[in-house]
């Protein structure tokens, strides 16, 4: 987590492919500059519509895959959630889209060798398969838990390498085990002796994963998803209360200091119902909240 900020590339990326995968669109973009520099856990931010679009803010997406050596492509997995993603998921091959990346810090390697558990909730599994490749290349044994509300909202089940472990959960039991990704987690940690967990998905899932990790003495690296206006650290909209190495909690930008945080450093108790409060002991918290 101590990379020196590299230059950010802004490219007019050509859409190479856009195909439907379950509830998502897997979109391949020609963006060699970004593909070369990116690491698992980093993200890209796309502008929506052209100069006459009323939507000004960029939309952020985890990088699913890059192919720096072949076609210089970057791949993302997008759920059609609102007007911005609606426009993005409708992009036809050959269309151009303004893309910034790679953004944020990637997943750190585990402190200790052995096994790691990778947890993806919904499209949160998008960055996990690439991360698995990198971990495996570093001699780490990989176990996946992929979960979603329903079978069509699972992503990547068929992309898991045969040598990796795989558990699938759905809330409604339409595929894999019925339940949450955390349900099989304790048993898996026991069984594999994994001391490192990587997780990407909705905030309540990340909080729950962190809880299990802590109970187990494991380290969880979580990829958070806060609403972002810029993606590059200039707007201060994407903050979370995160405890620093000095024990002080600061409202910390998830775009530049994240999106990967060590789960135990995030002040989850401040996060509820889609809102994040400023903990009263945070640096510079208003007097009233103390």
């Amino acid at each position, binding site marked *: 987590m101590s990379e020196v*900020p*590299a230059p950010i590339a802004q490219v007019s990326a050509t859409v190479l492919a856009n195909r439907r995968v379950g509830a998502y669109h897997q979109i391949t973009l020609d963006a060699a500059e970004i593909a070369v520099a990116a690491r698992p856990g980093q993200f890209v931010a796309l502008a929506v519509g052209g100069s006459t679009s009323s*939507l*000004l803010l960029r939309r952020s997406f985890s990088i699913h895959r890059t192919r720096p050596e072949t076609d210089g492509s970057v791949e993302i997995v997008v759920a059609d959630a609102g007007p911005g993603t609606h426009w993005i998921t409708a992009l036809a091959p050959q269309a151009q889209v303004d893309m910034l990346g790679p953004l944020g810090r990637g997943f750190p390697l585990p402190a200790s060798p052995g096994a790691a558990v990778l947890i993806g909730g919904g499209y949160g599994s998008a960055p996990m398969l690439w991360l698995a490749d990198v971990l495996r290349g570093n001699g780490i044994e990989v176990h996946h838990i992929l979960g979603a509300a329903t079978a069509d909202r699972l992503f990547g089940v068929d992309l898991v390498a045969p040598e990796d472990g795989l558990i699938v959960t759905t809330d409604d039991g339409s595929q894999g085990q019925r339940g949450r990704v955390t349900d099989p987690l304790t048993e898996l940690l026991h069984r594999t002796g994994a001391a490192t967990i990587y997780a990407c998905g909705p905030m309540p899932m990340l909080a729950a994963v962190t809880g299990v990790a802590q109970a187990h003495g494991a380290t969880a690296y979580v990829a958070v998803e806060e609403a972002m206006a810029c993606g*590059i650290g200039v707007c201060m909209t994407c903050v979370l209360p995160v405890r620093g190495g000095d024990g002080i909690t600061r409202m910390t930008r998830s775009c530049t200091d994240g999106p990967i945080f060590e789960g135990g450093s995030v002040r989850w108790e401040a996060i509820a119902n889609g809102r*994040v*409060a400023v903990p009263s002991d945070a640096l*510079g918290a208003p007097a009233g909240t103390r």
Partner: protein
Amino acid sequence: MTGVDLTADLGRGVLLPNPVLTASGCAANGKELHRVRDIAELGAFVTKSVKREPQSGRGTPRMAETPSGMLNSIGLQGPGIDAFVTHDLPWLAAVGARAVVSIAGASSQEFAEVAQALVQAPDIAAVAAIEVNISCPNVANRGLVFACDPGSSSEVLRLVAAQVPESIPLFAKLSPDVTDIVSIAAAALEGGAHGLTMINTLLGMHIDIDARRPHLFGGTGGLSGPAIRPVAVRAIWQVHAAMLAGRIPRAPIIGVGGVRTGLDALELTLAGASAVQVGTAIFNDPSAPWRVAHELASWLQSHGVNRYRDLVGAAHES
């Protein structure tokens, strides 16, 4: 661009190589945007408004997208003036940026203390101007924004001016949320401002329909972006017109509000701005400030205008 003089004149001998600045709070304190392009190429770099103490800012959501604009409610998150002077200003000086330092406070006294700490900074030479963000709430006056009251506006500028050497121009940043912006401009100039920055955000709000509550953690937020450009143009026009008519003293205006293209920057210039800031457009396109400067220069060249300064307020001549 050969043959085009882009120099912008902020008064008191401060000339900028080109008239395009960042807007306070839309470019942090420089390091982040410098990853996109060299901020020393900009006319000047305007820092995030800094207060005396570190500020956590508000909870989230801190923003909502709105048609051709956005609402923000950051709450002036920042390091406090001491850390700013120790870390941020030296960095800006080291990369050769011309800094316009935006200062804020919850009382006129706090403004003065921030200014005092700033002018004592070893790197004060990097400061081209100070922008006094009076569009923030005055705790002593039931939280009424300083810039909504002529008396408070004037007082803040008077106390700040007492701390700042003559060589550094003071720009008062005005709020558009007032019945008569000319009277606030007059009060700020009377207090000791050497120029005006217009406009700050408009007070707005977005309701989360499903949650049936205000979307922003802070309730209301500031509306910015191209949506508000017509209001910025009007405010600049009114104040510049009052200057031309001799109703208030002449002073340079830095225009801000919804600038996305070189033509937008020209529009604010023709209305009366001597330089222009780019804010929200950065979130859409982080190279916007440089692009705007380039588009501006291209337009001047293709229209045979040799000096940017000749266009300042030119629409008033018709």
